[in-house]
């Protein structure tokens, strides 16, 4: 394995500063993403950050790297194309719960079952913030929002359990108020070969008055500190993924080494597509015509 040369965090300093609300949880996530890339030793030119649409999806603009600030819900699909086009790139998706678990959930599930070598950081604030406070797929049952004035009647998505049953090979949860811990989880995801989900509690200080920093501060605990917790045990991970209430786990729930989608693609045996010759081989081309004679 190649030696990892850590980079200074300022290598990833973006062109402009975030325009998030003061106190937004996403600031912590932004810091952790940069720390993680530095820790994982990914050169900015080899890092592509792909987001969808939403407050948190503005993140690529604040990092010095390549990136696509794509359409609402489509970051995973765009990232799939980028990764398959150039497997030598490190591709990280960032976005929110509405983007990833609502409008984009189809791509999320399918990317996991493919075990593509992608890292997905979801800033989960359990609300639609950019559109000023409607219920999201992770809004808790009963919560009043602008679109559910009488209380949300739907059950929230459980992203960790969904990832575990969908074939993700690295499933973690972080908390934006714990940036060092979160950076370790994201760096682990970047270094992991396969699909990594890092769901992050990233409170919306403006529109979610329930799931606040105070709410999480007294509930979250770190799995790393739990004696005997085995992140290779999918049943144990499933059990922890369902834990919600007085105690909510953060940390690495599950990790497994499995062949990636890229490993099984025979065309990659000749290297990344961007480095393969553009023109068709003449003999191959002739055979394409001849098979129709």
């Amino acid at each position, binding site marked *: 394995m190649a030696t990892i040369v850590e980079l200074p965090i300022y290598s990833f300093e973006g*062109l*402009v500063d975030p*325009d998030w609300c003061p106190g937004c949880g996403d600031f912590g996530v932004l810091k952790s993403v940069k720390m993680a890339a530095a820790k994982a030793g990914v050169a*900015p*030119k*080899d890092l*592509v*950050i*792909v987001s969808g*649409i939403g407050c948190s999806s*503005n993140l*690529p*603009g604040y990092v*010095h*790297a*390549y*990136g*696509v*600030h*794509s*359409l609402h*819900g*489509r970051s995973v*699909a*765009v990232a*799939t*194309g*980028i*990764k*398959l*086009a*150039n497997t*030598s*790139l490190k591709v990280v998706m960032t976005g929110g719960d509405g983007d990833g678990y609502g409008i984009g959930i*189809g*791509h999320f*599930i*399918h990317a996991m079952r493919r075990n593509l070598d992608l890292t997905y950081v979801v800033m989960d604030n359990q609300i639609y913030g950019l559109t000023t406070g409607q219920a999201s797929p992770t809004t808790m049952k009963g919560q009043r929002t602008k679109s559910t004035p009488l209380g949300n009647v739907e059950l929230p998505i459980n992203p960790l359990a969904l990832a575990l049953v969908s074939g993700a090979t690295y499933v973690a949860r972080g908390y934006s108020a714990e940036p060092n811990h979160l950076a370790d989880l994201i760096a682990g995801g970047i270094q992991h070969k396969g699909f990594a989900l890092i769901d992050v509690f990233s409170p919306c200080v403006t529109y979610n008055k329930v799931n606040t920093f105070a709410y999480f501060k007294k509930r979250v605990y770190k799995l790393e500190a739990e004696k005997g917790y085995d992140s290779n045990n999918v049943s144990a991970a499933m059990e922890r993924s369902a834990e919600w209430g007085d105690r909510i786990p953060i940390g690495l729930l599950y990790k497994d080494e499995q062949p990636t989608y890229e490993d099984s693609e*025979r*065309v*990659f045996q*000749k290297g990344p*597509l*961007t480095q*393969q*010759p*553009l*023109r*068709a*081989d*003449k003999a*191959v*081309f*002739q*055979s*394409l*015509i*001849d098979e*129709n*004679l």
Partner: protein
Amino acid sequence: MSDVVVGIGGAAGDGIDKSAETVAKTASRSGLHAYGFNSYQSVIRGGHIWLRLRMGQEKVHSHGDHTHALIALNQDSIERHAPEIESGGAILFNADKLRINIPVRDNVLTVPLPIAELTKPLGAIQPVMQNTVALGALIFLLDFDFDVASSVLADTFAHKGQGVIDQNVGVLKAGYNYARERFVPLGHKWNFTRKRRPYLTGNEALSIGAVAAGCKFYSAYPMTPASGILTWMAEHSERCGVVVKQMEDELAVANAAIGAGYAGVRSMCGTSGGGFALMTEAIGMAGMIEAPVVFVEVQRGGPSTGIPTKTEQADLNQVYGASQGDFPRIIIAPKDTRDCFDSAVEAFNLAEKYQCPVIIITDLLLSEHPETVEPEYFSADVPIDRGEMVSGWKNGNGAFKRYAFTKSGISPRTIPGTADTLYIAATDDHDEEGVLISDVFCNAAIRRKISEKRMKKMDLALRDLPAPQIEGRADADVTLIGWGSTEGVIREAVQQLNASGTRTNQLHFKYLLPFHGKEANEILKRAKRTICVEQNATGQFARHLRAETGHSVSDQILKYDGEPFEPAQISAQVRAIVAGQPRSLDVTESEAREIAYHYVRVHLNDEFRPGRVQKAAGNGLGEALWKIDVVTREGGEKRGELQVGVETGSTYSWQPVR
């Protein structure tokens, strides 16, 4: 007779496609031209399949107007098609199971094949090999070379071993000898030049063009009639170095293709109208982030799920209007199979040169029908132009200007992994460096200039593309206008019209956007009578032509029944228009028969068939009626009468005979 049309009728699962391919390749290996069209249905078994294969000494551009030889694989096909066979033609069928139970034209040869007896010496055969007996007899009747036909079978079954080849060739020979001992050939005189031409579909030609152009990524979700590209690409993926990704839906398909294009490979995705509707938001994204991607829209009959296995040209409005906002896009409508190859190559070059989405719009007819193409048209040495792709950024003053405001509108492009050119491709509007000018930090001046920068690329692209030209005589009284796949059939209609004294020429459009409005207008100003021929119900192209040129066409010939134009259908309508005859949308006699077939299938369990069809007064229903005898399939005895409105096509009543 310089060409011949063979019709093969049967049910899905009867092996009709393979049989037709054997005949077509026998013709093409002998040096003839071939064109096949399979009018099939969206069922895997059953239904009615009607495949026509036209073969000629000269290039043929459609499946033609007449059928000269019928291979009937079931009774239904005899009942439906035996009466259409031209005098001098032949009807071939399995005499063990089928019989001619319907009047046929004079001087039509009936060839009842005793399949069991003929194949007995060859051991147990598959039921589908009844087709091969008929093919053998047909090869004799058409005066084709038996050895060429057997070489086609040998190649077809090469993967199954010599035993299977020998059996098939033996069966073919049995049919050939049976015909030779009893009949004389139908009288076609061929000059077998032995020039071998590939026989392939538009989907195949387009895929080969994409590979030649350096396509490295193809994504799709299965959808008829675009699936042929997906399966071709999947089958040739490793050999051609193309990563083929079937995604979960067309949203993913389009977005993944854009991701690959952004990352620096030549990228394409394909679908039909419904899938394209799902892709539209992403197409606007490709325009906004200036990612080069080729989108293929293979039209089928719409709206909605529509008629999935039938052809139409009714998605033009959709490709013109795909996605919100103004952005540059290029739309190309290939005119024939060969042009599918060329258009794919052009599309990749245009996409990279102008850093924008390019849409290739074809249709079921063009994408799925096979035809012979001159082999020299296909070359691996196609032009490749990657546009303003740069390997670095020397400026040093500030960040890389991925979206630099240039006079041409084209900005330098790099791919991720390049040092010093890091940028974010944003779907929010942005400045030269890719920094957002949306929401909090909107900037009207930058917005105006970047919008102009993007759209300027269209002016340049227009100058890059060849303008439309008149084909044919300058002294024409009628100019037939078309776009896309109808070029060949309109060309044949023009020939028919000129031969019968109506001076006609042709104006055909391949580049639909940007549009040569000025050049088109110069031509149209001089035309005496313009008739737009389109395979849709509302004349979508005629409307765009009016928008771009101010020219309103004199008349329109529209077809939207799902079946492709035949040349005589066009020429007859042109003559009627020129003669000032009133146009009618009334149900024709043959359509009345089709409606009766539908009724018999749905309500009478296919036990009967339509017989005599007569027009009658409306009898209080407010319109004239078609009275269709419904008769027994065996004896033709009348069992009832169906009444269908001549104007509305409504099925009014079914009266059983007491």
